[in-house]
């Protein structure tokens, strides 16, 4: 059974379509990447899952029922814009959120101290948030979302503003949550994190889905590119969309850059060559990166996409 099931979700703000007929589902133990620029509708979708805002139409099922605060105790959420009460100590903050999620004080304190120890903040447990560095405060906030061992962990742009050490720490927490069976959804426009972590991902542009599937499927959706050296003309091999021959190397050998048709695995082309006695001296396969996929599908650079979309939204 899916932890989260979204079908035909639509959200309109003052005539602006923020989420457009979006459907997807997330299974337990799955790490699900939510990719798109800042105005793509990621945050809006997450807020609807949390029942902070209500959809215009469509259906959301969280643990098999409609969104609402009854799910609070099984959900962990880290918003994109982060902040805590400056005058509250780290451990009190974690306990406060734990109790808001229905935990008792003792359990919340114990789990909170465990998390702070893991985040190397055990000795700062009683420090006020206002006296901490930004990085420390962000770790405390991560702890508030993890304190209840959520079965559904939703992280909105969790890596933004983190230094590399804390980024590593966050990746570990995501993997750890997934290992104990939690469904993890995180949104990002940094493709490397998604590439490293995600089991499946969803590409959003202006509120509508451009792609949903595994990383392999995403890559396969773009034509692969490979460089091969052969004496024959490789451009007429089935599955090759386009081929360009480079300069001759020696004795009639040429370097060919081959662009395959979408969905054609490079292995098929290699098989065809060996089956037809085409001798090859070089075979370099270049898989498209997620970045390439993003640029191709969303039509803009993921890092710059955020800003551009924000301006449109404003």
């Amino acid at each position, binding site marked *: 059974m899916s932890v989260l099931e979204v079908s035909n979700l639509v959200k309109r703000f003052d005539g602006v379509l923020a989420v457009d007929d979006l459907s997807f589902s997330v299974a337990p133990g799955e790490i699900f990447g939510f990719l798109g620029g800042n105005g793509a509708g990621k945050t809006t979708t997450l*807020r609807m899952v949390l029942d*902070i805002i209500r959809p215009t139409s469509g259906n959301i099922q969280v643990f098999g029922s409609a969104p609402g605060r009854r799910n609070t105790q099984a959900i962990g*959420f880290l918003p994109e814009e982060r902040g805590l009460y400056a005058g509250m100590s780290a451990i009190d903050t974690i306990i*406060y959120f734990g109790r808001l999620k229905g935990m008792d004080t003792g359990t919340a304190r114990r789990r909170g101290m465990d998390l702070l120890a893991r985040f190397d903040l055990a000795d700062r447990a009683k420090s006020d948030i206002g006296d901490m560095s930004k990085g420390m405060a962000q770790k405390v906030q991560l702890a508030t979302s993890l304190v209840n061992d959520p079965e559904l962990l939703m992280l909105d742009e969790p890596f933004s503003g983190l230094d590399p050490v804390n980024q590593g720490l966050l990746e570990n927490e995501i993997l750890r949550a997934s290992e104990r069976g939690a469904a993890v959804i995180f949104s990002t426009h940094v493709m490397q994190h998604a590439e490293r972590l995600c089991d499946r991902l969803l590409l959003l542009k202006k509120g509508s889905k451009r792609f949903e599937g595994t990383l392999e499927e995403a890559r396969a959706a773009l034509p692969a590119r490979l460089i091969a050296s052969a004496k024959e003309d490789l451009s007429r091999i089935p599955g090759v969309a386009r081929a360009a021959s480079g300069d001759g190397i020696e004795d009639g050998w040429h370097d060919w850059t081959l662009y395959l048709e979408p969905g054609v695995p490079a292995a098929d082309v290699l098989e065809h060559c060996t089956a037809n006695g085409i001798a090859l001296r070089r075979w370099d396969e270049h898989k498209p990166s997620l970045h390439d996929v993003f640029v191709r599908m969303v039509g803009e650079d993921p890092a710059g996409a955020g800003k551009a979309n924000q301006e449109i939204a404003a």
Partner: protein
Amino acid sequence: MNRSASMNGILLVAAREIRQILKMKSFWLTLLILPVAFALGPIFTETLNDDEPTRVAVVDRSGGGAAEALEARFAMEDTQWLLRDLSRYVQRYDLESADPEAPWAQFDRWYTGADIAAFEAAGGLDAALAKIDAVRPEGVPEFEADAPDYAFAPAPAALASAQGDAFGDEARALFDADDDTAPEIVVLIGETYPEDPRIQLFSADQPRGSFVSTMQEVLTVDLRARLLAAQGVSPAEAAAVQSAAPVIAVDTPPPGGGARETLLVRSIVPLALAYILMMSLMLSGSWMLQGSVEERSNKLLESLLACIRPEDLMYGKLLGSLTVGLLMILVWGACAGVAAYATQGAIADLIRPALEPVSSPGIIAAILFFFIAGYILISALFVAIGAMVDSMSEAQGYLMPVLLLILLPITFLIQAILAGNSGWMVQVLTWVPLWTPFTVMARLGMGIEWWEMVGSGILLAVTIVLELVLIGRLFRASLLSTGQKPSLKKIVERFRGTPA
């Protein structure tokens, strides 16, 4: 969402609000300022009150009885005050049984010369106190007589012998000498008096008007007596002419001090209640507003809203604010109680008539209702402001009109009630829910019809329910929309609950 989880959330938010406010220095400061001010008040008045009698020297060179007449008159006035004080003391502690016939055992009257003569004839203060001591129960403090206003002493020899301008110089030198025995007022009656009716008065400070007018009165009587004698009128006839005066009968409703005074006393506690409601509202409201602004500017609303419904967050804030307000009033009340106990009933005596209009169970219930309702009504407005602004300075922009709207009519109201006025404005203020709590509480002293109280109370309750529904919608719709200031149209849309 089930009810208990919702309640749990509300209580958690309220507890956090309270903790946050209790951590503020400004909370403790304001909490202490009121009792400290009240405690310091009497001390200051004590210091400012000059208990020492003003020393007066009369130099009478005319050889007549003017000096003696002056002295006798001021002594009589002092005795008159003493009798008044003593009778109040006797009345307060129910000590009439000491001597029911004595003038000081009869209250609500202006003591005449005859009373004073009787008092002096019976042995004066010492004799009266001896009788009172005989019946004074344990725990009743002894009577403490105030010092007389003026003490007459013979003029220093240097002054008495000084002539012409030297006299004035000598008097001024005495004033400057900073001597605790030197006279502060010197009256010179010349040798040729009353042919030359000029009297010279030298004073270290501006002399009190009452002193000058009493002196003039005494000397006028003396002067006229001499003039009449010079015209051949016998002293007995002269005295009869001088003492002829119309009899002025004063009729005021009981008890004693007259209706206006009674009204004032009865309105003290109700007015104080209305005032304290206003004060603590302004304080806790602005603290709550600070908290809301912090939540918005620190971007922690989204984390909160993932765990708790916006309505519950709002109720939690209201509950927290209400608790802090009641806590402040409890502390102030406790301070007043301690003060009343510590002063051995002196304040309690003042408070007893003041508490009379507010001491029946029904009235106490009404006060609680209007107090709490007022708190919720106004705090909810602060919540609404808190939901719409991103910074404290932005909040001020909304806050000022709201505060003026609440405060200005109340200022008029308090004045109207102090003037004993229950005209149309007080009526209007009673029935406009924004001012109902303050007006009803303030009117308790003057007396308010029960139907007015119940009617305006129901109207207030209905208004609060409506207000909470509307502001709940506004709160939900406004929480996550940061950046641009909402236009009036937007705000109206949010009130309607247009889905965000």
